């Protein structure tokens, strides 16, 4: 049994995966994650009739996504894991979106583009391997113009994520011949974080809560004093 949570986007979600089914909550709640996440977790545990103690591992959407949101998920997962002496399963938000496209639309090749602001997208490509969506390349933050084209041989991809809407004009000319469908409304969802975590759990991919780190992808967030002086004319 796995508890999963995600607060990396304007959506907030929690899910409990059990062999009898997945119990979940998903709400679009810009800025109210911190109010909702613990009550949501309480509800899904109650519905699943499972206590935090009975959970085998806690999974969370570890990013990429909004920095603060990704940290809230990490912090909540850390706090719960420490309290209940559990280990954590960090799950990529992009992978969870690809998994959702697979489970809901049978998409087997997915290009995820999540708006990263500052003219960039969080980018990843995923394919169906061993019954679940797995990365075909390292996730990155990239300008839409530089997003790598998929290998030409298999050109039936599904584009997923709000990056496809935000940067449509830049992405479509290059990708239109590869795509069979685009789902711009998809956001990371704890249900699919849980689904991927079940596989990770079976592989023993569990991490000590003190050692997990959010995945930001964008790692240069400020200029040093030297860099600022170098910029001055």
């Amino acid at each position, binding site marked *: 049994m796995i508890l999963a949570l995600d607060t990396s986007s304007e959506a907030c979600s929690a899910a409990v995966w059990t062999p009898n089914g997945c119990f979940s909550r998903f709400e679009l709640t810009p800025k109210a994650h*911190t*109010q909702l*996440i*613990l*009550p949501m977790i*309480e509800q899904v545990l109650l519905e699943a009739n499972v206590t*935090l103690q009975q959970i085998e591992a806690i999974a969370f959407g570890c990013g990429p996504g909004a*920095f*603060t949101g990704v*940290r*809230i998920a*990490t*912090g*909540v*997962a*850390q*706090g*719960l894991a*420490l*309290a*209940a002496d559990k280990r954590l399963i960090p799950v990529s938000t992009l992978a969870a979106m690809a998994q959702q496209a697979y489970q809901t639309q049978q998409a087997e090749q997915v290009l995820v583009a999540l708006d990263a602001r500052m003219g960039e997208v969080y980018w990843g490509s995923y394919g169906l391997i061993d019954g679940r969506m797995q990365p075909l390349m390292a996730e990155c933050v990239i300008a839409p113009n530089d997003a790598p084209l998929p290998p030409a041989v298999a050109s039936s991809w599904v584009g997923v994520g709000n990056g496809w809407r935000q940067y449509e004009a830049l992405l479509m000319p290059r990708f239109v011949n590869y795509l069979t469908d685009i789902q711009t409304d998809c956001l990371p969802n704890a249900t699919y974080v849980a689904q991927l975590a079940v596989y990770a759990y079976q592989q023993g991919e569990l991490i000590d*809560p*003190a050692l997990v*780190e*959010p995945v*930001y992808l964008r790692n240069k*967030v*400020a*200029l*040093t*004093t*030297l860099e*600022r002086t170098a910029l001055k004319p």
Partner: protein
Amino acid sequence: MITLGIETSCDESGVAVYSTKQGLLSHQLFSQIKLHAEYGGVVPELASRDHIRRVLPLIKQTLKEADLTLADIDGIAYTAGPGLIGALMTGASIARSLAWGLNIPAVGVHHMEGHLLAPLLEPNPPQFPFVALLVSGGHTMLVDVPRLGEYHLLGESVDDAAGEAFDKTAKLLGLDYPGGPLLAKLALQGRSGLYRFPRPMTDRPGCDFSFSGLKTSTLTAWQNSTQTEQDKADIARAFEEAVVDTLTIKCRRAIEQTGRKQLVVAGGVGANQRLRAQLATLPAQVFFPRLEFCTDNGAMIALAGALRLAAGAMEPPIIQVRPRWPLMELSAA
């Protein structure tokens, strides 16, 4: 009641365990000063990124040092504000979820209440009522404290905080980041009486402060000097004397105005030796935290939280922070 306290409002991660029976049991601090040094100031996003790395290991160390496990903890206190929103949120997310998972109460502590109560961590603590001088990087205020949680503002800075004035002036004099403590160190080598800067707002009634003009006076003096190391030290000395005199004059007024017999000094500038020496001459018993509890730390948060929890503080399982939160809005415990 044994309380775990977590502080992450700015650039230090602090964790401590405080017992209402036995006092402070253990505390740990990780300072991010090195991380922000090359940026010339605290970068909020980097501060948050570091807190999430540090807090869990610090909790483990702190419990180990006190020879306790989480099962011994009765409540969790965390800094809920004021401070950097992302930094606060990191500590609050961990702390609130930890308390929820352990099924124990949590309380969001006001960072400045934490500072203000820090002298209560010492062997001979002050008794309510008292007057408090809060002098930190973000605040300079004089507060009348009739009892726990009741704060009446007597005066505050209308511009820069005292610590901010130390830091900005240090920067103008070319000292490394963070400059406040370095400026104070340099002032020790300075000679008294070679420069004299104004004691702002002391000619007016009341307990308000203004420190932003002092940095201009200092810069002008520096530019007009021969700019030797000795000049720099002399100017640092004069700056420090001006700040310390001003704080002392206003503290004397606050004591006279309220008739309180005790003065509590808290916040980073409270580490300043000249200030400590000069305030000791006032007609009141003066209380300081030990030097390491003048600046941000987990111990003061564990203490303030323990007092509030012992008084019955409760909060729902909601993660909430208040980056801006006037101390006067607190209600008595």
